[in-house]
């Protein structure tokens, strides 16, 4: 196998693996930038952040893809071991795995930039962010591959790498310079050389790391087994020190065991991923803003968006049992658990909530860290103002309001993670791809706005919300009836759930009088869409409980 042929084969394999997800991810990157533009600019987000959301949103997803898609054994860090068997040198493997990934990341950013230029008509920096995105992706891969065996080193090493990068990036953000191109226009040859050096360093780090990983025997046990001369080994219990761990004691229930499996197989990675992504974003995207800009808002909004993205990501991951293959059929271990469809679906739902909660916790901790850092070295007054505002808000709101707000947040978590989970659990890729429909709608709207020059469609945005508001209870009712017919739920349980829903809805509407205005016919301003989101969220939060068992049964018993 000559080296060019091998490289081409690897590139082709990479293309085949990511052929379907690349357009989806590009779309997601575009809509991320678009959403940021539409939703957050009115709140005072700076345009610099758009570039970063596009670059790092895309990067994060690409990075996720290389993590998830290239694995044959589910989620894992490190280089793909399967490729070690190829008759190629380690530098060859590393470079030919990196090049397509870097090119893909760059191409995706360029597509996003082109989209912003064509559709939104904004002047959009190309050279600087592309070079930065390649550098970041290459470093992400290098760290991931070299530290696959020692994931606990990932955060400190990542931080150590990111800090000089941020320090270099910081002067790019001239405070007060409103024009997007102004800061990126002077991206010169010197910067390119610097980034090229950084890329080279990343490649070297990756080669050294992968080489060590390739040479290392699989496990300590296999080493022991290899050195064993013959004869019977003493019982394991005598040779191995007994580790006292919580899980050794056994699981209290089947659900507990399944939950543990879900967490260990997927949840823990989502949290790790969220932590890495958030730290990176805070440093590269939000952090320079804190240090340079007069406002904390951008960074907060940025992290808030990632908070919003965590539940669907968790739902998607927990719904898909085989991450590497296109076939999203329920895997055999899960499918043959002696659990009823409902119990299994509820366990997966619970796992999704746990994962979301963990990712949120990570995000909140990161946020707190960012606050502390900003308070110490940055805009102290702003932080104190925000903290004071929060304190006042807490002081002046009634406990009932807080409880309802908390309920709404839980409802959002359930809906935003449970609905994707349910759809993905069906094991039908068409339904999963349907998740992209809202994004497509927004993109279509943007194109419409660009062509006609009217932003009338933005005023239409609340109508889908109204439609959801009416559709979701109907769908819930139909699903509940089907669940009853198929024996997933008893009539009593369903009635109880329905009563809880009605009670909560009434409480919500009476507690917040502005919600009542939503039902008055007539023009619906954009701001009032928020008013719809609350009841829609609440009703959507009930749907996964009846939808997930149906979808799971559809997938499990084909």
């Amino acid at each position, binding site marked *: 196998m000559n080296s060019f042929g091998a490289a081409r084969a690897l590139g082709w394999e990479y293309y085949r693996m990511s052929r379907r997800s690349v357009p989806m991810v590009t779309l997601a990157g575009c809509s991320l930038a678009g959403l940021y533009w539409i939703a957050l600019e009115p709140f005072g987000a700076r345009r610099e952040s758009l570039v970063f959301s596009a670059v790092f949103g895309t990067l994060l997803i690409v990075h996720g893809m290389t993590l998830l898609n290239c694995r044959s054994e589910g989620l894992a860090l490190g280089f793909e071991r399967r490729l070690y068997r190829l008759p190629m040198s380690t530098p060859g493997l590393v470079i030919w795995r990196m090049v397509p990934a870097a090119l893909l990341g760059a191409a995706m950013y360029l597509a996003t930039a082109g989209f912003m230029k064509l559709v939104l008509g904004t002047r959009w920096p190309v050279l600087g962010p592309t070079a930065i995105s390649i550098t970041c992706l290459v470093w992400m891969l290098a760290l991931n591959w070299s530290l696959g065996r020692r994931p606990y080193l990932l955060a400190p090493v990542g931080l150590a790498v990111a800090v000089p990068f941020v320090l270099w990036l910081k002067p790019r953000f001239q405070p007060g310079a409103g024009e997007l191109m102004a800061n990126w226009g002077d991206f010169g040859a010197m910067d390119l050389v610097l980034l090229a050096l950084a890329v080279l360093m990343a490649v070297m780090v990756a080669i050294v790391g992968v080489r060590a990983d390739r040479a290392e025997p699989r*496990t300590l046990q296999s080493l022991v087994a290899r050195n064993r001369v013959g004869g019977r080994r003493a019982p394991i219990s005598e040779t191995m020190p007994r580790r006292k761990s919580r899980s050794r004691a056994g699981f*209290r229930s089947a659900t507990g065991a399944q939950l543990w499996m879900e967490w260990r197989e997927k949840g823990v990675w989502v949290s790790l991923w969220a932590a890495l992504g958030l730290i990176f974003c805070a440093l590269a995207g939000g952090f320079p803003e804190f240090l340079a800009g007069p406002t904390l808002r951008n960074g907060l909004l940025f992290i808030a968006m990632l908070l919003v993205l965590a539940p669907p990501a968790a739902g998607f991951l927990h719904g898909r049992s085989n991450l590497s293959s296109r076939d999203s059929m329920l895997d055999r271990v899960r499918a043959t658990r002696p659990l009823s469809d409902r119990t299994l679906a509820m366990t997966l739902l619970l796992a999704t909530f746990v994962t979301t909660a963990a990712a949120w916790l990570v995000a909140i901790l990161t946020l707190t860290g960012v606050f502390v850092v900003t308070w110490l070295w940055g805009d102290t007054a702003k932080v104190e103002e925000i903290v004071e505002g929060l304190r006042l808000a807490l002081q002046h709101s009634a406990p009932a309001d807080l409880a309802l707000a908390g309920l709404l947040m839980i409802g959002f978590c359930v809906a935003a993670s449970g609905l994707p989970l349910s759809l993905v659990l069906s094991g039908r890729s068409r339904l999963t791809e349907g998740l992209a429909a809202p994004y497509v709608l927004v993109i279509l709207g943007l194109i419409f706005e660009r062509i006609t020059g009217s932003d009338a469609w933005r005023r239409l945005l609340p109508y889908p919300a109204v439609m959801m508001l009416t559709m979701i209870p109907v769908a819930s009712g139909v699903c509940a009836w089907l669940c009853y017919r198929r024996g997933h739920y008893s009539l009593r349980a369903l009635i109880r759930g329905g009563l809880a829903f009605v009670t909560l809805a009434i409480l919500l509407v009476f507690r917040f009088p502005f919600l009542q205005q939503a039902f008055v016919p007539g023009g619906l301003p954009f701001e009032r869409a928020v008013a719809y989101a609350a009841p829609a969220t609440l009703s959507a939060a009930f749907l996964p409980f009846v939808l997930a068992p149906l979808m799971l049964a559809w997938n499990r018993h084909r």
Partner: protein
Amino acid sequence: MSYPLEIQALCRRYGGTVALDHVDLVIEEGAVLGLIGRNGAGKTTLIRHVLGLLKAQSGSVRVFGADPVKHPAQTLARIGYVSEDRDLPGWMRIEELLRYTRAFFPDWDETLASDLCRAFDLDPRQRVRTLSRGQHVRTALVLALAPRPALLVLDEPSSGLDPVVRRDVLEAVIQHVAHEGRTVLFSSHLLDEVERVSDHLVMIDRGTMLVDGPMDEVVEGFKHVVYRHAEDSNGSGFGALPGMSLCVEMGSTSSGAASSGAPSSDSASRNSIDHEVLCLCRFETSVDEHALAAQASAGGFELIEILPATLDEIFLNLTCRAS
């Protein structure tokens, strides 16, 4: 009292291809049913129905009297299953996998599990991902046996394994059924294994059942028969002799050519001599050679030889006939 497994008129299609075509199957309690067929014959499809992973498109599947699709928890709790693929979660250590699986089965036998692990030389600290294929199957076997399931389902467990592990699988089956009320469904394309451990045989090809009967009856019932008939009769009447339920012609030679040892090129002379036919026949009762010879000669045939048929020969001839 319901059977451990009862399948009636089960059909399954994947698009245009028929995977199972009216399969009827009953396993009695305490039996070892050997399911044999070529790769892609429908064995795995059948087993997926038993596990409730496929819904019967028509016909019915009952595991201990219950529909595995409607009551997955109840049926799966009584089934131990070893699949042909490496599908155990690779990131788990064996001890973790044991603990995890134990949580699902109330009747889990910890002593048996640890005994088996020791006997199989499994290292509890090892990750499943790093196991060899043989150790992987052994692990799957421990997981399937330790809950002491009433029905053990083995889907080609030993394909591609070394003889030691294959032997382990067979011994596991034998030891499993040694206890009261345990039943085994054993799918394989390794015929000698199936012949060893099964007492009932089902042969399946392209979704249809070719043979279904007690192992002894099948092995003894099939015979190779060589007979001679005149050229003018086409020999089709031989299969209609009493006591014979199946007769597959496997080949014929002109007897003149065979005895002289040289191919006869003269077509005229070939027309004048008799034809010798070798066929595979299935007899309902034990064969009485003299009675059969008498019946054959009454029908215009001369019975030359009756030879035993091995399971391999039966399998090859029946499946080739279908193609």
